[in-house]
């Protein structure tokens, strides 16, 4: 079976963000980049499925500038077989429909038995792309899975609902699965696998050749949230900080 995994490169969320000159997105200068957390679960699930099936090929796909290849190497070191890099210098200009259209344009007619995506990206957090890809390819979509199994050509899983409730769902493959946190335990690439990954192929395509669709959502502007109101800030030397906090605890609560 051929398996496709869509992975997105996102900044470390602990970064100090700045706005880009147009004020429409964050500036991508001086950021540390990593694989979208949700997509790590997607890669891991695909690798586990390959281990189960024996005969499977995992292709990871990422849309973005050249730097996304670093992240693709991690996925290859985790156990994916090959990469498809859809080169686009400014993927943030595309809305979810645009991103999903590119993925669908690549995946159509390629006979993937399963497509894994994250349930959402950490920067945009829209939770749309995976489901859109499934609808575009006219495949059943099992979204927000926290459990996954594959038996006799059928995908079964548990969707996570609010308050810890789960819904059991299943569908015949081919299908699309969107991965929620905790679906599995993503592995760390081992050194031998990192070495092996260097020899794996990453094919590069250009977004404009696949056909960039006009967007359906316009960006008006990006801004920082309004500053917090009134909270007390404790900063500096450890002993000063503890005594300041102890004062708060004494005044407000009879803890001590």
């Amino acid at each position, binding site marked *: 079976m051929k398996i496709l995994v869509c992975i997105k490169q996102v900044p470390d969320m602990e970064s100090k963000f700045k706005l880009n000159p147009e004020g429409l997105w964050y500036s991508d200068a001086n950021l540390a980049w990593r694989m979208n957390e949700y997509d790590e679960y997607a890669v891991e699930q695909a690798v586990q499925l390959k281990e189960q099936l024996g005969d499977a090929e995992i292709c990871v796909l990422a849309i973005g500038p050249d730097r996304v290849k670093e992240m693709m190497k991690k996925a290859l070191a985790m156990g994916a077989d090959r990469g498809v890099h859809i080169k686009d210098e400014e993927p943030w200009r595309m809305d979810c429909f645009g991103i999903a259209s590119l993925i669908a344009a690549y995946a159509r007619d390629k006979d993937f038995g399963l497509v894994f995506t994250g349930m959402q990206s950490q920067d945009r957090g829209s939770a749309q792309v995976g489901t859109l890809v499934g609808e575009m390819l006219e495949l059943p979509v099992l979204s927000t899975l926290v459990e996954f199994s594959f038996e006799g050509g059928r995908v079964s899983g548990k969707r996570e609902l609010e308050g810890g409730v789960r819904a*059991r769902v299943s569908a015949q493959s081919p299908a699309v699965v969107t991965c929620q*946190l905790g679906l599995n335990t993503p592995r760390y690439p081992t050194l031998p696998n990192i070495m092996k990954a260097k020899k794996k192929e990453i094919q590069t395509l250009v977004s404009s050749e696949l056909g960039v669709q006009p967007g359906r959502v316009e960006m008006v502007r*990006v801004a920082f949230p309004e500053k917090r109101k009134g909270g007390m800030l404790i900063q500096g030397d450890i002993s000063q900080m503890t005594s300041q906090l102890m004062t708060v605890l004494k005044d407000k609560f009879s803890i001590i």
Partner: protein
Amino acid sequence: MKALLVAEYRENQVRECTYELLSFAERLGAAPVMFIVGDADALPAFEGPLYLAEASTCGEFSPSVHKALLLEVIAREQPDYVVFSHSSYGWDLAPRVALATGAGQISEILDLHEEGFVVPLCNSKLRSTLKASGPLSVLTLQSGAFAAAEPQGSPQVMALDVPAGTDPLRFEGLEEAEKSEVDLSKAEIIVSAGRGIGKKDNIEMIANLAKAMGGEFGASRPVVDAGWAEHSRQVGSTGQSVAPKLYVACGISGAVQHLMGMKKSDFVIAINSDAEAPIAEVADVMVVADLKEFVPALLSCLQG
């Protein structure tokens, strides 16, 4: 202007988030029309037109069928907006409807102004204002961002027929949440560990702090997913909702799903090395420190 509001129903009940859609429609200044796949005996308390399909025949969770029903209502009503909650039901169904109608979708809206809809970016460290380009917008609302309207009145019900065709996705039933071993909902003081604790061994330090303060310890989701704490200690939208007098968040960034579980806390202390972590927005006291140094120091003050 007209807004089609997609109400939610689960296990014989209308879900609370339905009433948030109503107050949003009012903010928009749009006339509300509601849609629900539910039960004629458990209708939303809403004074207005309601399209009803029976969950007993259309399935409580059946995306293709619910999409077909919604497309039928959209064709009849020609709304300007189709509004969902950003919930497991809403984020699954909304993109399907957006694609089928050619609409732009804006997810997880937390505010609106003349220029568009405001959504969080980068774990809420930034805010983006967006608007759909075409005549129809599909929107999902961040849970809790719009106060729920008072449930009142009874709707004028229009029954929908079961659409033809079966869903390739089979819904096989619900599983209840695991029974919790600790009941955090009654704790007056909760000290929670987030991913910032770095490793499993440091849970003990947080548990000790909780004990020294006379409370219980809780955790954010990554800590539970990693197996460092049991699920019953998870605070958030897919864990427990808590309402302590004091909530101490150690190494927790303050993602919206975590905030949902602890926003009823009277007083919040955050200990975080990142002064800009979004938890700062809800913290009464923000301690900017490495918790691995600060928590032991605080412990010795409390014990000393």
